[in-house]
């Protein structure tokens, strides 16, 4: 049995038991039980939608505190390119990267640079024969998990290429080991993350046994520390990534790096779902590539970022105008290929969490029962029962985790009929008393 780790968790004290998150969750993974939200572990894909929607900030993403880097003798930061869009009036990426060194890291390796290699790996994959089209980017872990849960028949379409974060971690580590002649276990490699799903991927990698990253620190956690440094620091020349890699922070960045035309770049998990449904129907069978990012605007819209994603997008566009580094060469990519594991080692398994029963026959029976219950429910999808819709309540009842009386309308009906029954009973007098005047009123 697979053990589930999730970055997205609930702060019990802050949860008011409202229905905002259950309605927004793309995998119907949340219920309200006894006045508090409960996340169904098997279904949660760590997309962070509930974090964004919760008005009480009761949904949180657990990431590592900055102190987690301390036990390591050497500390390497892997900043996601989304970090670059978080700061006002900064024209030089080096200022941002240098500030990471000033808050405790010894080395910085831009994930954007690794993304350039990934672009080349994807290009190569696209040329392979017998590919299930469209090839779906594996970069967004929430989307990959969404496919595991809701679109298992599209698992074959996912590019079997490691994420820029994993490539960055491998390169950063090996370069540091060579340069300073130190051993791997002395080095801690930490991703500076805009996203909860990446944290989950470090603990529970998809398509691999173990992550090359030691932990993830949220952009929000170090935001104020960086702001303090950035104002005064003298930038060191650390920036190596080109425009191609940095653009991965925003939607369409990955696609535009591939030099292809027949692609779709979709952002926002609910938009992604709509496009995946079209692919299921074979409507997009001529498409070569699908870039699908869970957050609106791409990674700059991640739940652990500070800045509005449109503002961040604009900043990144302006920042990269100043960047004149050239993208990694194909020759260099060839060398890197020999050095790192760039292909996913394990197959990505489906998660059969939607099915009602192990046997098809029993599942059909339950489905019919579910339908009967659904027909008796009001169909308002109000969420008061704690399930996101009447259909899910019917499903929960069939699965034995809810009851029809959880529906306030059903309960009212029942109370009404009980009350009527009581009136009826109260009218009945024993035969011995028949004919007596009732003086109670």
């Amino acid at each position, binding site marked *: 049995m697979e053990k589930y780790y999730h970055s997205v968790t609930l702060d019990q004290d802050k949860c008011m038991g409202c229905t905002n998150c259950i309605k927004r969750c793309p995998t119907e993974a949340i219920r309200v039980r006894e006045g508090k939200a409960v996340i169904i572990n098997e279904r949660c894909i760590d997309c962070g939608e509930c974090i964004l929607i919760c008005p009480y900030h009761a949904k949180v993403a657990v990431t590592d505190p900055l102190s987690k880097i301390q036990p390591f003798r050497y500390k390497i930061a892997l900043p996601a390119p989304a970090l670059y869009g978080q700061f006002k009036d900064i024209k030089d990426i080096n200022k941002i990267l240098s500030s990471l060194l000033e808050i405790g890291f010894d080395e910085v390796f831009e994930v954007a640079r690794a993304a350039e290699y990934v672009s080349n790996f994807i290009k190569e994959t696209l040329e392979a024969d017998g590919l299930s089209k469209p090839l779906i980017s594996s970069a967004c872990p929430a989307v990959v998990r969404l496919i595991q849960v*809701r679109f*298992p*028949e*599209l*698992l074959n379409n996912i590019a079997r290429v490691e994420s820029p974060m994993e490539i960055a971690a491998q390169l950063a580590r090996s370069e540091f080991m060579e340069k300073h002649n130190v051993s791997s276990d002395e080095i801690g490699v930490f991703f500076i993350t805009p996203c909860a799903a990446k944290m989950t991927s470090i603990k529970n990698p998809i398509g691999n046994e173990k992550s090359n990253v030691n932990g993830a620190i949220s952009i929000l956690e170090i935001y104020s520390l960086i702001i303090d440094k950035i104002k005064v620091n003298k930038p060191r020349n650390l920036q190596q990534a080109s425009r191609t890699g940095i653009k991965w922070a925003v939607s369409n960045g990955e696609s535009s790096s591939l030099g292809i035309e027949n692609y779709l770049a979709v952002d926002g998990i609910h938009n992604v779902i709509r496009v995946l*449904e079209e692919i*299921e*129907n*074979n*409507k997009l069978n001529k498409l070569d590539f699908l870039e699908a990012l869970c957050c609106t605007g791409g990674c700059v819209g991640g739940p652990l970022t500070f800045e509005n994603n449109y503002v961040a997008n604009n900043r990144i566009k302006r920042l990269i105008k100043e960047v004149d580094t050239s993208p990694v060469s194909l020759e260099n990519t060839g060398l890197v290929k020999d050095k790192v594991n760039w292909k996913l080692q394990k197959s990505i398994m*489906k998660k*059969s969490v*939607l*099915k*009602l*029963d*192990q*046997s*098809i*026959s*029993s*599942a*059909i*029976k339950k*489905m*019919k029962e579910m*339908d009967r219950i659904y027909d008796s429910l009001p169909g308002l999808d109000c969420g008061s029962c704690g399930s996101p819709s009447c259909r899910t309540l019917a*499903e929960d009842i069939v699965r034995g985790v809810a009851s029809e009386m959880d529906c306030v309308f059903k309960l009212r009906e029942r109370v009404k009929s009980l009350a009527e029954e009581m009136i009826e009973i109260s009218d009945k007098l024993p035969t011995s008393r028949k004919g007596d005047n009732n003086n109670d009123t």
Partner: protein
Amino acid sequence: MRENDKDNIIEISFPVKSGDFVAAGDASSKTKQLLKQIGIDPAIIRRASIACYEAEINLVIHSMGGTLVLLITPVEIIIRTEDIGPGIADIDLAMKEGYTTASDSSRELGFGAGMGLPNMQRCADNVEIVSKLGSGTVLTITIKTGA
């Protein structure tokens, strides 16, 4: 909506209107959802989704309206469409890739490439078409669940 008395058979019918592109695809979406909850193998679901979608879209584009009936048993998935016309003149020709009678307006929407029936045939274990010009068409697609 489910009329079948046998407790391990599901039968649902979806009315499909001619030219209704707003609701086009609803029946196949619901079908997919059902198949996933029943726990049908993903590869079979993929085939059933494509066939069901093509059949539904055919009703929207080519027919004067009709019904899509989904029948799920533990061993097979049957998708049957029944329409009220106009009927297919030459079934063999209709099965040919690239042959279409779709209107320009449908083709502008990206439908009517003449791939509907051939696609269905590729996805199904059996396709049966009974049609009479001037009356209507009954299309029956059978896909084995592998159970």
